[in-house]
């Protein structure tokens, strides 16, 4: 019987046990478990990898704890701009959006771009116009509002600091007890198809219409039935420069590496050398799942019909 596997992440960064309260930790575990269960149920019912990762990510986007969809961080102007991408490893079809506002589930919009547009990558107001035309669910600004994210933004609004996902370099005080994150999912379905997706609210206080790696096919998100599905989280600029997600696939296809070896090379050698903090999750065509991080923690969970089960935060 074909193995089915789902792995998800809720962001990587300086996530330390000593900064966490037991309640918050439990809330993260619950959020991850709920998303994993939601996505895995789709696979168990014979659903596609694309639908499974979409289901898992919708749950994470709807969860205030994670920096995607509801609960996204604020930009310099005090608005929330979200990015998402999805890729189907069977057809190499892909869809991505960047800088969208008021779209309840950016991953739904990315999927719509993949399935029902001539394009791969839509941005800004144009992407929102496309969402309206296609009947994608919108929400008012208040829906995305989270007091915690807002306080975080206000505190650094007038500084030139910006904060990554979960890195509290500039923000140690502020982020002492709460952490942030991109979300992502990869899956192998019963038909042997692989898919990958990522969704994020980006960096707190980001300026200048910055685009990170999440919506960039090949950098933050990539899937190919021949090799693997990958979703990344971390210092986006470094993941773009190293074309991180696709590099894993290339190392497997052209160099014959295993998924694990390829991910180790990219995350723990190449990215470390560049100073790129973060991690990634991956699944290969045989249903092996791998989660590699070079930061202190990454919210992550996974399950496979081969018996693999994981729910973890710290390294």
């Amino acid at each position, binding site marked *: 019987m074909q193995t089915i596997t789902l792995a998800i992440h809720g962001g990587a960064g300086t996530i330390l046990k000593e900064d966490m309260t037991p309640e918050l930790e439990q809330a993260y575990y619950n959020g991850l478990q709920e998303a994993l269960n939601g996505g895995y149920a789709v696979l168990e019912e014979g659903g596609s990898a694309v639908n499974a990762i979409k289901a898992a990510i919708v749950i994470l986007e709807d969860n205030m704890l994670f920096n995607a969809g509801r609960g996204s961080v604020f930009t310099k102007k005090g608005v929330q701009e979200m990015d998402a991408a999805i890729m189907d490893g069977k057809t190499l079809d892909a869809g991505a959006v960047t800088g969208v506002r008021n779209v309840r589930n950016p991953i739904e919009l990315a999927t719509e771009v993949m399935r029902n547009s001539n394009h791969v990558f839509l941005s800004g107001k144009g992407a929102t116009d496309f969402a309206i035309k296609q009947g994608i669910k919108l929400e008012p600004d208040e829906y995305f509002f989270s007091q915690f994210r807002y306080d975080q933004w206000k505190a650094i609004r007038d500084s030139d600091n910006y904060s990554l996902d979960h890195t509290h370099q500039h923000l140690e005080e502020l982020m002492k007890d709460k952490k942030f994150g991109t979300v992502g999912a990869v899956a192998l379905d019963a038909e042997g198809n692989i898919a990958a997706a990522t969704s994020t609210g980006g960096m707190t206080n980001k300026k200048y219409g910055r685009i990170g790696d999440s919506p960039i096919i*090949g950098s933050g998100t990539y899937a190919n039935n021949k090799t693997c599905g990958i979703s990344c989280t971390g210092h986006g600029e470094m993941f773009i420069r190293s074309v991180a997600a*696709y590099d894993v696939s290339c190392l497997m296809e052209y160099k014959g590496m295993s998924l694990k070896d390829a991910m180790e090379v990219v995350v723990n050698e190449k990215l470390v050398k560049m100073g790129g903090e973060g991690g990634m999750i991956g699944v290969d065509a045989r249903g092996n799942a791998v989660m590699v991080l070079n930061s202190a923690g990454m919210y992550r969970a996974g399950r496979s019909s081969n018996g693999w089960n994981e729910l973890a935060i710290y390294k």
Partner: protein
Amino acid sequence: MKRLLLFFMCSMVILSSLFAQQKGDYILVIHGGAGTITRQNMTPEKEAVYRSVLQKALETGYAVLKSGKSSIDAVEATIRVLEDDPHFNAGKGAVFTHDGRNELDAAIMNGRTLAAGSVAGVTTIRNPISAARAVMEKSEHVMLIGKGAEQFAKEAGLQIVDPKYFWTKERWDGLQKALKEDSIKAKLDHSFNQQTDQKKLGIINIDYKFGTVGCVALDNNGDLAAGTSTGGMTNKKYGRVGDAPIIGAGTYANNNTVAVSCTGWGEFYIRNVVAHDLSALMEYKGLSVSEAGKTVIEKVGKLGGDGGLIALDKNGNMTMPFNTAGMYRGAIKKDGTIEIYIYN
């Protein structure tokens, strides 16, 4: 016997290295877009204009390299020539979006440091390639879009122009034609590909002009750089972003391997991560730059896409493959020898 074998192997090594050195004379390669560029659609006068602009761009980049400056300097200077010329779909002379705007994208990458910068959807920056460079060198980010990118460019001291600066009659007429022909589906500016899925592409494109510009260069220090600049697709909607500003898709440079700039149907280049794929085929599979170039263009074709690319490896070997009727392209060698081609 053993000694004979050793002698034989040594001479092979010497011979092959000599051969590689002979081939490796190129220091700068450019393209001005790929698409349905055929002799039938060209007048001798028009062809002469295109050739002279390509020559000017090559000479500009060559002079920069000969003065001892970096490949990044050369790529920027060369692309600025092509952006400033109204015949190419980049900078002045860019095609119009559905809303009648010129939205420009550009990217640049340094093969030595793997530093990169790109801008997308900008409407007021005279030379988007210089904005991409400023993002690479003066910001903490790699990719900026829209108004934010324009604000950054302004703060970085780049020349800001009224959007009218980019207007040309030919491109405007192109949009009007496209709008009349099909108000729903955007068309690839330069493609007239009847083999592709009509439903997906929309109606065949009656606009025979071509676009994206790009440059790859190798400097005296052995550093590679790549840059790409474009006005995108005529009649594009929904804030579409193509491959040109995407590091790994339309633009990539790595001193270990190669510098690449792509042109063509961007969606396919994004899905295939073409520029990085070419580099990976060389680094991980040991292919030559021309084998790798041929392979990635075949992969684009297999998915139903078309276009071309230019690639220059760390040893000065280059390739300029495409699967369209033509691609404006040219190269210059260390000794100043220039080659310019348009058709297949």
